[in-house]
């Protein structure tokens, strides 16, 4: 394989992996606080349409990312209010949020179909990306660097800061955290809002990085894959990075298979299209064969908090 093709593939892998990584990082923080938000797909779709609309009208991709984040936070607050303030069932509420996000984004986007936007340009000057190695290092738009920074930042936050310790305490033992004076609900609200912002940004990446237009359900289940990756990664940020790139690779193979030619096209394109989902099942199976996956899960995951007194 010649170098140019290899680099082209690498760049595609990075683009496909980034939204999953960003969304999964948000969900990781949410789950570490003891909350299971299955609405990632819905929040991503809401972020995608918000980002698209702002990019369409302003042409400023940074504003579009911010809009995606803001829309994701708003959506996550619906989830937060129901599950944290009213202790509603988290599984059902997350599903409702995804159904809502699918409908909301389709409605908001109904007048924008088949209208192109401009893709987000690389962060660094093009001169830096002329050499192949320069392209690999400096050829990407801002969200790619953001995703890498967030992997490190979230790891640092969770394991090296006091606030991160409190967040983990709330996720592992909410009653104790409550009894020593921390606001369990407050911490979880912040975590849920962070997860919403990250899912919103991840959604906005779809029109900004991948396909420069609006399409209904354009996130195509990537939000669910992000949720699965958090399990796969045993709630650890660096493993999440590896998992997201594994999926990016699988999805890129699909793109090349569909483009036709080469050894990949022997297998029907539908098999490639189904591959990310089957791969998700495969990694979930592998992770549970290797050890009991549930031992790493935050102890309070998915359970509503009701103070004992």
């Amino acid at each position, binding site marked *: 394989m010649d170098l140019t093709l290899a680099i082209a593939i690498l760049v595609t892998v990075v683009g496909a992996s980034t939204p999953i990584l960003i969304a999964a990082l948000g969900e990781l923080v949410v789950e570490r606080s003891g909350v299971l938000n299955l609405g990632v797909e819905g929040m991503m779709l809401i972020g995608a349409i918000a980002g698209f609309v702002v990019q369409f009208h302003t042409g400023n991709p940074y504003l579009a990312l911010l809009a995606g984040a803001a829309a994701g936070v708003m959506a996550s607050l619906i989830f937060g209010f129901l599950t944290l303030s009213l202790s509603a069932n988290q*599984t059902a509420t997350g599903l409702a949020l995804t*159904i809502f996000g699918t409908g909301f984004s389709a409605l908001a986007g109904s007048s924008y179909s088949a209208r192109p936007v401009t893709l987000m340009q690389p962060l660094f000057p093009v001169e830096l990306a002329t050499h192949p190695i320069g392209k690999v290092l400096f050829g990407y738009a801002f969200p790619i660097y953001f995703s890498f920074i967030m992997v490190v930042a979230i790891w640092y936050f969770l394991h090296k800061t006091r606030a991160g310790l409190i967040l983990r305490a709330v996720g592992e033992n909410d009653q104790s955290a409550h009894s020593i004076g921390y606001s369990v609900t407050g911490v979880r609200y912040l975590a849920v809002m962070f997860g919403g912002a990250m899912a919103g940004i991840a959604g906005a990446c779809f029109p900004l990085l991948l396909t420069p237009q609006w399409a209904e359900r354009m996130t195509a289940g990537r939000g669910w894959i992000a949720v699965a990756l958090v399990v796969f990664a045993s709630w650890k940020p660096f493993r999440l990075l590896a998992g997201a790139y594994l999926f990016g690779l699988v999805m890129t193979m699909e793109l090349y298979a569909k483009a036709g030619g080469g050894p990949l096209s022997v297998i029907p394109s539908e098999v490639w299209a189904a591959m990310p989902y089957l791969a998700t099942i495969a990694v979930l199976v592998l992770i549970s064969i290797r050890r009991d996956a549930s031992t790493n899960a935050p102890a309070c995951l998915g359970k509503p908090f009701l103070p004992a007194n």
Partner: protein
Amino acid sequence: MQFRLEKRREPSRFMLYATPVAAVLLTMLLGGIIFSLIGYNGFGAVREIFLTPLTNPYKWQDLGVKAAPLIIIGVGLSIAYRANVWNIGAEGQYIIGGLAGTGVALATWGMTGWWILPLMVLAGMAGGMAYASIPALLKTRLNVNEILTSLMLTYASVQLIYYLIRAPWKDPMGMGFPQTRLFSEAARLPTIIPGTIVHLGVPMAVLVGFIAWFVMTRTVFGYRMRVVGAAPSAARYGGFSENKTIWLAMLVSGGLAGLAGVLEVAGPFQRMVPGFPTNYGFTAIIVAFLGRLNPLGVIVAGVVLAITFVGGEVAQTTIGLPNAATGIFQAMMLFFLLAADILIKYRVRRVTHQASVETA
């Protein structure tokens, strides 16, 4: 004036059944306001979506046909969710059920015989059960989360449709369209009221609801499902194996989703097309919750959701409301219902200043 939540001694049965009604009414009210605020004829939309399908007798047959799959899938999901088994891949099991029925219809194409339809129905149910047994197997053997596996299988099943109707099952006379040939007469579900589109699946759905209600309230199977969901440790103590419950819940919900799929392909569609996945499997999740995971409630909830589907189409043509609005109304119903759940276990007390000092 302050309000305070006070835990009830036991869950309120009144609230259990009053809250779904309140959720629908609140959705109509707030939905109307929200859609007005974003520039649509909000209350016109509410009237068309929630009332026109009921007041216009020409729409009743559509209601029945839309409600049937929602009820059949919703009944299965209500049984699984009762047992705390989160099968959210009913859409995939519905698709595999439809494909299995299609397989039989194509294999018997051109033949006649009363046995073809029952064979299709059996194949559809078996297909749904087989597809649901994958998450069941992974959950019981390896403790893999059934939410994620059942959902991922749904995405994969959609691709299976695309592959089958593009290549091996493609209609040879279809002018290149990716779809199967039209089923022969013997493989089509008969209509039961002449001159309408109401097919055999409609009374079957109601029957499924009543049978499930009987099974859930009057048999050991139903007791097992309810106990495992409500009190897992008591169920273990009582000798109910958790794994067996997971298998039963998955097979029942998958089999019913498969049944809905085969009825849908043999009834309204009469051939397999790319548009076969219509999200009934996902909407049935709302149906199950709105029906309070009670099979009889699911029948009512299935009709309510069918009303919004039919009404959504009406609103699209009469007042130009985008079809996506239906999904928003449906999700709002579920949001309100989940929000109101707290009223089952808690009551809202107005506390005067004095009273709050006393309790403090």
